[in-house]
């Protein structure tokens, strides 16, 4: 397992060794200079996409075929990919928190609560997104999975735009969201549980697809 994890990390680090520091500095400078946390949230999103790009590297060099001949299980191969996404988004979370603190020190603010909640929310959405992407990518290839999920999200957002008010009449979503400030720990625990559940289900589906996949 450790070898598979090394393979993922070496591949990504070699690929993005120039780009990553540049993006980190750029987003950091923009966040502090423009007094905007948005760039820190966006950094998490970008890191999630970086971690997924390993799949296209695998596709281009035929790694999957070779991996099947190694004494490793499908769960280990898939697990290494999920773990790398966790590591990359985790790094972005810590980096975002550190820069957010610096930004607040510069601007004289003190409250880190909104930033922490925001970053955690983006991390969880990123993990859910990537987890949904993996089984589709193993089944149809990264490009088709990416395009397919984009269409799915588009349908969701257009649906919300068109029917959001009607949905809100049935389920008071806005009021529900207002309870975040009242029950933050409950919301955090619930969101983490949902994220964990989605990840576990997607991991199981990915393992099953990978095991049956022929190269």
């Amino acid at each position, binding site marked *: *397992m*450790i*070898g*598979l*994890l*090394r*393979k993922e990390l*070496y*591949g990504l680090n*070699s*690929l993005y060794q120039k780009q990553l520091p540049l993006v980190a500095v750029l987003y950091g400078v923009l966040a502090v200079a423009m007094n905007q946390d948005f760039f820190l949230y966006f950094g998490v999103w970008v890191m999630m996409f970086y971690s997924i790009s390993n799949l296209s*590297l*695998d596709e*281009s*060099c*035929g*790694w999957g*075929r*070779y991996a*099947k*001949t*190694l*004494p*490793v*299980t499908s769960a280990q191969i898939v697990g290494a990919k999920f773990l790398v996404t966790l590591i990359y988004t985790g790094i972005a979370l810590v980096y975002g928190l550190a820069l957010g603190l610096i930004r607040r020190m510069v601007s004289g603010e003190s409250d880190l609560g909104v930033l922490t909640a925001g970053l955690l929310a983006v991390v969880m959405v990123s993990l859910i997104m990537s987890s949904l992407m993996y089984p589709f990518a193993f089944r149809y290839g990264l490009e088709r999975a990416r395009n397919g999920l984009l269409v799915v999200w588009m349908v969701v957002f257009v649906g919300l735009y068109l029917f959001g008010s009607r949905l809100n009449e049935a389920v008071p979503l806005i009021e529900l969201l207002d309870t975040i400030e009242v029950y933050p720990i409950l919301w955090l625990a619930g969101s983490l549980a949902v994220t964990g559940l989605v990840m576990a289900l997607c991991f199981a589906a990915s393992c099953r697809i990978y095991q*049956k996949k*022929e*190269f």
Partner: protein
Amino acid sequence: MTNLVEVAGLCKRYDSFTLDHIDLTVPEGQIVGLIGENGAGKTTTIKSILGVVRPDGGTIRLMGKPSGDKGALEKVGVVFEDSYFNGVLTPSQIDRILQGIRPDWDSVKFRRDCEAFGLDHRKKIKDFSRGMRMKLSLATALASHPRLLVMDEATSGLDPVVRGEILDIFLEFIQDEGCGILLSSHITTDLERVADQIAYIHRGRLLFQRDKDELLQETAIVRAPEALLSRLPEELVMVRKTGGSGGSAALVRDPGTVRRLLPDAVIDRTSIDEMMQFYGGRDAE
């Protein structure tokens, strides 16, 4: 002699191609050369043995265990047509990756082999020539002290010098009587040099698996006018080729008997290449 690979009745069906009841063995101490035209089913056979694709029928035993068994795969080194590592990696990184994957990985041997092959540890794979990438794949396959090497077109596209070096490594590897090699190749001269047995797959079917020396000694090509060739008993004729500028020809078994029956015919020794041309040629009957 124990078989490292035992394939019996292997079937694999695709929309446009079927691998039809392949029987194949790779005994210890032997190099088995797998030959066949493009699309004949060599790669599918190899993939099935390694568990990369799931057969639709038949049985495969890899060192006595089912295909895809992780314990058996620990003892198998694989080389495909090109490198399967991401081009941004270096041999040094591959060393550390496989240390964490293969239980019998020998870092010292890997580094020694890389040096012997002239591979720079810090250079990225994408900067290697094709020959160097093949050597890296071979060093990778050998560093876990496998009992079985499986190579799919490992020498294709390489110059004769590099091919010669790689074939020498095969011969050195096979010095250990407990080891074996399954080698698929289009370059039949390589197989004539190193293989102990030849297995010929033609349009998804195994035509034969035979001892190479026996095969080459016990077959010949007869060139003669059609009228003369037709006098040969059918049991001596393996494949017949009609027409052409040089008259008709046939691939025959038992050249001694054929020589006695047709003293005026031209009888030449055959090569694996010619054998393939006979079986795969347009005029083959």
